[in-house]
């Protein structure tokens, strides 16, 4: 029993974290939201080069995976940076195609050349993606124009055809990992703000009312993380679907809770579009219901008990 990341796994996540931090994602997010995919594509390629997509693709198709633990660690970093693009969707597509679909796309995914979106039920960034798939692994066509998300960096498109009620568990896990990163980023930036921002002549972080909000957010986030890794280790077992659903419930609530506290502690500046935390606050709510709402996943967990 060794339920902590190995040295290699920590190094992999650390590499991605530095790469994403150096990229200055806030600017990339705003460009992406306005339809300029260039900087986001560059970041995508850089992450591919660092091995992000390769660890989702089986060896026989040009990858080194699937390695769910590494992917959870990686997606937390993608979420922490609020990197725009269909990361969850492409990783989920890789798993789906390796399992049951047409493997032709896999080498392209592994090297970062293929950006894939999935209809769950809307297709994220279908305008940027090279391919749009249904959750059956079959190609789909985007129908009509985009629908507008609360998070403008999530460009969603309606897709033709039927949608299964249950999103694939692998994508659920990837989405949850991304959410954890979003929540942690919000907690960290809010803690820094509470140290610096003064009211009534002292930093607001001195007040217990503020401290207790932030401590509560930390508790929820830190106890959600083990569920992610527990689910990653259950990949390939009958419990995987249940465990991914459980992780999504806990992380969704923790991450969205952190977003609400971030907004409250930042006050009006947090409500301001041009101030960066808004990018994370909106994403936290959007991801709350993406890949299944907490209510749907709770019902899934309950059905398995």
């Amino acid at each position, binding site marked *: 029993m060794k339920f902590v990341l190995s040295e290699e796994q920590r190094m992999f996540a650390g590499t991605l974290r530095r790469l994403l931090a150096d990229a200055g994602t806030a600017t990339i997010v705003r460009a992406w939201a306005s339809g300029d995919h260039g900087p986001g594509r560059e970041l995508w390629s850089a992450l591919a080069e660092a091995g992000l997509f390769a660890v989702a693709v089986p060896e026989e198709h040009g990858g080194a995976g699937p390695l769910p633990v590494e992917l959870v660690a990686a997606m937390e970093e993608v979420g922490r940076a609020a990197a725009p693009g269909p990361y969850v969707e492409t990783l989920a597509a890789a798993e789906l195609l390796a399992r049951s679909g047409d493997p032709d796309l896999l080498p392209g995914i592994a090297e970062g050349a293929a950006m894939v979106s999935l209809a769950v039920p809307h297709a994220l960034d279908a305008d940027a993606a090279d391919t749009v798939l249904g959750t059956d692994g079959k190609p789909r066509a985007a129908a009509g124009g985009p629908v507008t998300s609360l998070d403008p960096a999530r460009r969603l498109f309606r897709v033709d055809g039927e949608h299964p009620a249950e999103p694939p568990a692998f994508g659920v896990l990837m989405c949850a990992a991304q959410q954890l990163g979003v929540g942690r980023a919000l907690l960290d930036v809010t803690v820094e703000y509470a140290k610096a921002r003064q009211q009534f002549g002292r930093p607001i972080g001195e007040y*217990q009312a503020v401290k207790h909000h932030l401590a509560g957010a930390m508790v929820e986030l830190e106890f959600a993380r083990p569920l992610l890794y527990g689910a990653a280790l259950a990949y390939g077992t009958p419990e995987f679907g249940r465990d991914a659903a459980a992780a999504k419930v806990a992380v969704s609530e923790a991450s969205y809770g952190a977003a609400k506290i971030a907004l409250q502690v930042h006050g009006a500046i947090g409500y301001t579009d041009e101030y960066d935390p808004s990018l994370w606050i909106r994403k936290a709510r959007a991801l709350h219901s993406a890949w299944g709402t907490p209510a749907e996943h709770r019902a899934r967990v309950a059905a398995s008990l």
Partner: protein
Amino acid sequence: MDLEFGAADEEFRAEVRAWLAEHVPAEPLPSLETEEGFARHREWERTLGADRLSVVSWPREHGGRGVSVLQWLVFEEEYYAANAPGRVSQNGINLLAPTLMKHGTPEQLARVLPPMAAGEVIWAQAWSEPGAGSDLAALRATATRTDGGWLLNGQKTWSSRAAFADRGFGLFRSDPESERHRGLTYLMFPLDAEGVTVRPIGRLDGKPAFAELFLDGVFVPDADVIGEPGKGWNVAMSTAGNERGLTLRSPGRFTAATERLVELWKERADPSDTALRDRVADAWIRSRAYRLKGFETISRDDDIGAESSLNKIFWSDLDVALHETALDLLGADGELESEWLENYVFSLAGPIYAGTNEIQRNVIAERLLGLPRGAR
């Protein structure tokens, strides 16, 4: 990273499970918070101790079997799954023993630990005073130097187990000029000594399980001072850290309670009541989170320190929510005496004792998040 139990762990689990199946009383014991129940639980401690199962992770010379922390977690899972009796020795085992192992003399270890492990001496904690609860450093009970030892005077209160236990341990102000954390001494003392008056206090459940202690010139020999006189605060803090870590509430307690909650839900719940269903699912998810976090904690090499405050808040909130859900599933029967109700009332103390959750949130904010200390 893995969640695999080794062959030795599985073997140990099977052994513990078989032992519990053979020894756990078929009828639940009377509440350990009553005189009769206390005596019956003391007997149970002796049964456990006789087969070296009362403190499995302790070294053999102290009465344990020297198993790993992981195997202790396994033991706890099996113990709670078997619905074995509550541990009347827990104050001594969880609070005093770790302090002794860190700061005690060889003589103290040899004298105190084996009888504790065997259930022969039951210990009560004596931390709080009427004016010193969350602000423990405000305590005023004194220890005054005398020939060969100390004389204790003052009052302790809300002392768990003290109504029926044999001995107590706590902090006393040994330097009358001192303030706050300085000049305190950590002492062990007999509850039946001359000068000790024990007055049981009824709790929220009406049971006289904790007590206030009036100490009037109680003699304690030097041999019962733990660590250096005057340095009791530092000695005690190692106990507090332990209390807020995994030892106080092992994950097995919650995974077992959740299994029973799920059974209750299947028996009792109206299938259309999705709100209750969701609360059952949340209890399951959160007890699983606590279990996995426990495995993470024991997989790490570093001292978790202030991170134990995260645990304290999480398990105490989980305990309340889980038992509230059970009472709601019981409907109108929820207010009637039952094991669920007893555990519910006990859960309500969780956010209060071992450092209130408000104090824990301050610790998290200041020591883990780095926020500035400020006016309370």
